[in-house]
């Protein structure tokens, strides 16, 4: 954290503070963590913990523990303040999606967007435009909620830390509409379970995306949060502390202009650069500690200083390597259209595997050092839960 302001802020926030009122009880803090409080109670806890070092520490320690999966059969609890708040945004999204699907493809987005989506699809190369916007995230419509949203939240958040973020707006990324009848790999990336932090496939579009309809960030945040909460409630495994990421295959280097934005001084970036964007067919990521990976001209490299310098990772050959998903400083998955997958494990070893398919590998999603899903261009998905030792075809 080089910026002196960040250092000052960190020291200030680490320093002791106490709120004037008495601290809430451990049970109240437990109820907060469980989401069992009313809105006003939650706000009261947050108001207090914002100024109370002890309670902030209490919440932090509770949050750092693995999520609970109670073995006791429990009467379903209704967090009553959440009961109905999800209905309206979900219903609205479904209506939007239904309208979207019914429209012809060209009517759904301007030509620039069509090119962007096309260029994101390796099996459907699009005509290139010199001033083309970068490949949009190959995302499902926003009605899928987490897909479009998490496209803006790249995989390095899965690392348990923050990586530098480009100072690019996230609303346009979320607003980028991808029709349901887009390239097959888009459909293939719509996982049955709520996707975790998806790797960016490309930086968000530039400011001339006036055809996109910006939405109120706060309202969209709330709607997206609520949709996501419901999705997450249906899959407790997806709420484990390990987040995952999906990479999209890199588009040919000549297809896209270099869209690397200016380096931001903000410490909260979740992705540095999308797969496929930029010169040289690069894709790179790093975590809050500055440790990261990239594929540069087919060579797998590592960094320990947030991409300032890169060193050859001495990886086994992976011809055509174009996908990477970083799980932690040392754990990273790599994929190539040939179907070959490399995993750098935490013990420093490389594990090579191949998905049992003859069609091209188009995307790789990983949620841990052992679990990953690979999608092929013919919309089949293969899952491994043993770091690639076996790949199992998932039902459609």
């Amino acid at each position, binding site marked *: 954290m080089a910026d*002196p302001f*960040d*250092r*000052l*802020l*960190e*020291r*200030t*926030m*680490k*320093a*002791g*503070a106490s709120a004037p009122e008495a601290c809430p009880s*451990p*049970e*109240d*803090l*437990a*109820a907060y*963590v*469980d989401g*069992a409080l009313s809105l006003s109670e939650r*706000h009261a806890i*947050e108001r207090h*913990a*914002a100024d109370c070092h002890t309670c*902030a*520490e*209490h*919440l*932090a*320690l*509770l*949050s*750092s*523990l693995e*999520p*609970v999966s*109670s*073995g*006791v*059969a*429990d*009467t379903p*609890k*209704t*967090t009553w303040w959440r009961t109905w708040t999800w209905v309206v945004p979900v219903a609205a999204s479904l209506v939007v999606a239904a309208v979207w699907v019914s429209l012809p493809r060209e009517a759904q987005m301007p030509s620039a967007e069509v090119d962007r989506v096309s260029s994101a699809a390796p099996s459907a190369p699009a005509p290139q435009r010199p001033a083309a916007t970068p490949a949009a995230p190959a995302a499902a419509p926003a009605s899928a909620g987490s897909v479009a949203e*998490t496209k*803006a939240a790249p995989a390095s*958040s*899965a690392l*348990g830390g923050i990586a530098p973020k480009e100072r690019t707006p996230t609303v346009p990324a979320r607003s980028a509409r991808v029709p349901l009848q887009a390239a097959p790999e888009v459909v293939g990336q719509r996982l049955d379970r709520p996707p975790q932090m998806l790797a960016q496939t490309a930086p968000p579009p530039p400011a001339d995306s006036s055809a996109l309809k910006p939405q109120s960030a706060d309202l969209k*945040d709330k709607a*997206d*949060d609520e949709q996501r*909460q419901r999705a997450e409630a249906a899959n407790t495994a997806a709420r484990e502390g390990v*987040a995952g990421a999906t990479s999209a295959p890199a588009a040919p280097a000549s297809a896209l202009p270099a869209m690397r934005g200016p380096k931001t001084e*903000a410490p*909260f970036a*979740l992705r540095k650069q999308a797969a496929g964007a930029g010169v040289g067919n690069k894709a790179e990521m790093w975590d809050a500690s500055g440790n990261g990976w990239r594929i540069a001209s087919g060579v797998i490299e590592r960094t320990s200083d947030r991409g300032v310098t890169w060193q050859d990772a001495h990886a086994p050959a992976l011809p055509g390597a174009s996908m990477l998903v970083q799980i932690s400083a040392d754990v990273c998955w790599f994929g190539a259209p040939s179907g070959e997958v490399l995993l750098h494990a935490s013990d420093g070893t490389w594990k090579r595997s191949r998905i049992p398919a003859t069609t091209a590998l188009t995307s790789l999603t990983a949620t841990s050092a052992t679990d990953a899903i690979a999608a092929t261009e013919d919309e089949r998905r293969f899952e491994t839960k043993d770091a690639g030792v076996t790949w199992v075809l998932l039902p459609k």
Partner: protein
Amino acid sequence: MSLDRPAFRARHRHTIARLYEASEATRWRVTTDVFEAALHGSVAHRFPDATSAADVNRYLETLHVNELALACACRAGDEPAWEHFIREYRPSLYAAARSIASDEGRDLADGLYAELFGLTERDGERRSLLAYYHGRSRLTTWLRSILVQRHIDRRRSAARLETLDEERIDGLPGSGAATGPDPARSAYVSMAQGALDEAIAALESREKLRLRLYYGQQLTLAQIGRLTGEHEATVSRKLDRARRDLKNSVETLLRREHGLSEAAVRECLEAAASAPELHLSRLLAGHE
């Protein structure tokens, strides 16, 4: 004043009966009277003042009644209930203690376990810590919260006995450091910290909490999001915005109120970020 027991029973008879059945309290031989007392205790804790029957009913529906019944049975010393507790809750209790307190986790968990079992006596009566479980949160989360409280209390008690690290007192007058405090630098430190404190005070509570959890407690985006019920991307975006706004506020305050130039503002922030005297005063505040 909160509802008394007879009035509670009269007004919520049907809800109590339904929850009793749903809780499988009979599995642990918990009587309706004991279960009702537990529900009443929970309501009294939540609503110390009078409130509407509808609010009470709504609250009762949110309780983890199975675990409340189990807690009642354990407090009463029911053996099958304790066997169930040991099988289902003890492992995660010890795992959480290890995670929180590493080497001291075992000791921490043992102490808590003894209190749960009721090895402490007050006025000749065996008292179990489970008497303080009201079913509002899951039992596991409640147990973890108690563990965390114990851990923080232990650590603070130990910290009061620690001597100051010599590094912390470098740079202070009389500390034997090579140079005494620079008045100009001290002024910069004071300006910067004052500006930051003012800017932080103007933040909304949730923004402050996110910053405190991220910077102060070093939580990840995912962990913060789990607490605040937000997605990682949302947490990241809001943290970024808050940090940017804070920095702008601080720089504006320094320029406008103290007449500092751009270069002086940078120097001011750099001085404050590395000032040992600031570090000590804030650390002392943390030990209060």
